């Protein structure tokens, strides 16, 4: 086991190194330059652009820029080109904003998908199963931004309450339970929207896993033994169907930093996804690359965690 962990960590560090090179290359190969360096503003003279280039090390060869960037990153002194703020501080602030949305969204996804999927599997082919399938496909196919607009228009015009942002703007100094509930309310729509796709996919997945397990011999045996219905489905079948999901948990991790560009932009949510998107538009290389690097680290940690979880929950796997 320890040998596995050691080997895995070494492999992942090598992967990370290549990811850092590739992502650096891709971002610099992409057309366009930072807005400070490539303005279509008559007031910018070539000398000033040149000064910006020097200040940002853009006049150096790529490998030197690479060294500068990762040196700064590991010293924690990378600053955004757009506003000169330390990149890590910016990311941390946004991460804290995206986190509640991510947690509520994940909770909704995982808690709703299971009962829906299990019931579909148990009553396979029934009215319930068929309507659940239908709704799942509707939810998968509906474009997120469109669904978001429909919900916002409905809520704003019918319920007449604000839904945009992290809280009602100018709510002022109302009592704290009101402020907490207000925040919860503002979290509701974006996290539902973030969860719809997940619910649709995950409940399908739960259903197929359950169906696969329900067909196994040991389930038939359990049923033949005359065990209660509940016990057959929820102990013998469900427990075994759960195995793949445990490992999926590790893969949620990268979602922490990704955020959702579309949902966050529509709801003016000051989250990670929106910041990353805007950084890309203004070619704020330090910010993009740092987010990219953290995302890569999280993906690798995620796969590592899921590998380990597999070992822990599945007695058939030995390392």
């Amino acid at each position, binding site marked *: 086991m320890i040998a596995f962990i050691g080997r895995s960590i070494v492999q992942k560090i090598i992967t990370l190194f290549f990811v850092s090179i590739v992502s650096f290359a891709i971002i610099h190969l992409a057309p366009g*330059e930072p807005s400070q360096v490539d303005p*279509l503003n008559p007031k910018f003279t070539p000398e000033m652009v040149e000064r910006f280039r020097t200040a940002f090390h853009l006049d150096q060869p790529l490998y030197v820029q690479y060294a500068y960037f990762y040196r700064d990153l590991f010293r924690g002194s990378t600053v955004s080109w757009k506003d*000169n703020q330390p990149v890590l501080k910016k990311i941390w602030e946004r991460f804290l904003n995206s986190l509640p949305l991510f947690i509520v969204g994940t909770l909704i996804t995982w808690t709703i998908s299971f*009962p829906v999927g299990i019931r579909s599997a148990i009553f396979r082919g029934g009215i319930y199963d068929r309507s659940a399938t239908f709704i799942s496909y509707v939810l998968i196919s509906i474009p997120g931004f469109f669904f978001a607009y429909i919900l916002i228009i409905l809520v704003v015009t019918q319920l007449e309450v604000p839904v*945009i942002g992290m809280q009602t703007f100018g709510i002022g100094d109302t009592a704290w339970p009101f402020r907490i509930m207000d925040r919860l309310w503002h979290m*509701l729509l974006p996290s539902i929207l973030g969860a719809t796709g997940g619910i649709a996919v995950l409940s399908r997945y739960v259903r197929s896993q359950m169906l696969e397990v329900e067909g196994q011999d040991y389930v038939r045996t359990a049923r033949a033994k005359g065990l209660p219905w509940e016990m057959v489905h929820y102990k013998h079948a469900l427990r075994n169907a759960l195995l793949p999901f445990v490992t999926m948990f590790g893969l949620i991790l990268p979602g922490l930093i990704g955020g959702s560009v579309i949902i966050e932009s529509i709801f*003016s949510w*000051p989250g990670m996804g929106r910041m990353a998107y805007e950084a890309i538009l203004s070619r704020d290389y330090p910010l993009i690359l740092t987010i990219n690097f953290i995302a890569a680290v999280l993906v690798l940690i995620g796969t590592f965690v899921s590998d380990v979880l597999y070992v822990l929950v599945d007695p058939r796997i030995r390392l």
Partner: protein
Amino acid sequence: MRKGVFLSTRRFLILVPLVLSLLLLQSYFWVPTYDEQARGNPGRLEEYINASIGDASILNPILSADSASSEIESQVFDGLIDRDENLHFRGRVAQSWEVTEEAFFFVNDAARVPGALGSEPESVLRHLEQKRNDPAALSAPVQKSLQNIRALTLLPPRNYTVTRPRPGSDAKAAAEIRLEVAAPARIKLVLREVDQDLFTHLAEILGADYFTTFQAARHITAAPAVSETDLAALTEALLPAIEQNPVIEFRLRPGVRFHDGRAVGAADVRFTYEAIMDPRNLSPRVADYEPVKEIHILDPLTLRIVYKRLYSPAIGTWAMGILPRHLLNAEALKQEAVRSGKDPAAFSMRQSAFNRAPVGCGPFVFKEWKSDQAIFLDRFEDYWEGPVNYKTYAYRIIPDLLTQEMEFYAGTIDSYGVQPYQVERLAGDPRFQSFSGTSYSYAYIGYNLRRKPFDDPRVRRALAMAIDVNKIIRFVLYNQGERTTGPFLRQTDFYNDAVAPVPFDPQGALRLLAEAGWQPDAEGRLAKNGQRLQFTLISNSGNDIRKSILAITQDAWKQIGIDVRTDLLEWSVFIQERVNKLDFDALVLGWSMGIDPDLYQIWHSSQTGPHQLNFGGYRNPEADDLIIKIRQEYNHDRLVDYCHQLHALIARDQPYTFLYVPKWTAVLDKRIVIRDADAEGRSRYRRITPTKTGNHMFYFNQWIKLAEMPQFSN
């Protein structure tokens, strides 16, 4: 017992999502609806909430280059001057100002002055004085130039030594040359107002070649010696035959204070200038202030700015917000660097925390900035013009236009920039008042004049005649646009209303093309010498309006037999690969611009290289001359005259097909009105009316929101 456990697994799976959903949904009952918000929170009426699609980046007027930042800066900082209702300058921190000129020329002892006793300095001066006192024999413009002279003085010859980097050597070699300068006598003229024709008029008195034959190189010896051309370049900078230095003298308003209580003085203005010019700050505004020669502080409230050369856009640059010197000077920055544990040597104004918590002397005090959420400003009680009516100003960042609209309906933003397609339905809504005007920009089709067939003005005119611009305005812009015929702002005097738009006339276009040699073949396709008339029209992707224009013009040109292809490119590819490298036939693009009529960078023939803004390659010596004259003219009436000429000239040459100026529409709650005081100090309410140039925000400092919809008599 066991059975209970299994039951609870199932129940657990069902109960958890149920409880979670209920918990989330019940929060609705705690959230105030809009009516409750306004009733429970009267402070909302004293709060103005503005929405923007993008966040500010850096709240320092000398460093920022984006519109969101400058919008906040305009509330937090005040400049020396700004523009009044008619877009003329008016004083803000400056109470008054005067523009004069100092001009110099070296006495040219080699030239013979007609009618003078000799060519030595005293004779030349006496000759000029004499002409000034008795100008009868001279032409009217020359007389006027002479009357404009306030004083004439003779500056004695001067000997001095300077060192300059050796021309042609790079900075690393650090080779220097010593220059012994024996400057001859110089005559100084103090003028009442700037006169760009001064020396052409003086040449009529002193002789046509008096200024051109001055041999500066004779008065300079270089050690070690350099080539003649290098010496010429050096002497040109050291001893220019003539020099015109406009001078602006600003008198500041007494009693103006920064938000921290310090008085605003001339030293702060000079500091702002020095901060812009400091290369470490990488200010994007260097180009505006480069022509400044020196700034003298005459007394704590008076400031004299001398310019290196005639540059009339310079006056407008003093609308720049004034920075507080005591918070940002070298000493303050050093202390800040030490406090925050950074290297003081590498710490410039760009790194300062000031940029996220600015202090100015404008109507609002900066309070808080939540990135990508909102920026909050509070009213400045000590504002020199008296405190504004609104107590707080909030700038919300809502990146999505539809949600902006929703927030406007929900009452959580006060103003809303209406999309063209919404104008009709919102204008009729009784709850709202709406304003509209033309924006500071225009859209055009630009041609690459280096390529055939665009080098022929007849072809360009024919292309313009084939397009029905009114149709574009009607169907693409939902009538939210106005035609434009030239490069000046529609709402300024500089725009020449006498220039008629190119008519929509496909038959006429065909006739013009035939004149230029393009004849339709059997299938109606235009060709010349067996070569078909074909080219590619490009634009950037992501802009639906430009995309539609592309399709409409393509169709219009196909109708008269031109083979047009279109292409949409991602913005940075479009700019870097095509526009900057001048690799295009024709393109659809727009310019947004300031009020100042300086067109040098977009239309002057010296700006046609790669990465320059005259990418169409327009060259016209006549236009060049006018562009330079506009840059050097300080008199508004003459400026208007030159602009009208230039406008007509560019409209005749048609290097662009000028399409339209977009119109903006803003809606506000009708309860927002203007509150000011009458002569006896009683509050008086009136409706918000736009200024002549369409600016409804001009009286923003007097705006306030009422609890009830007001009724005005008319």
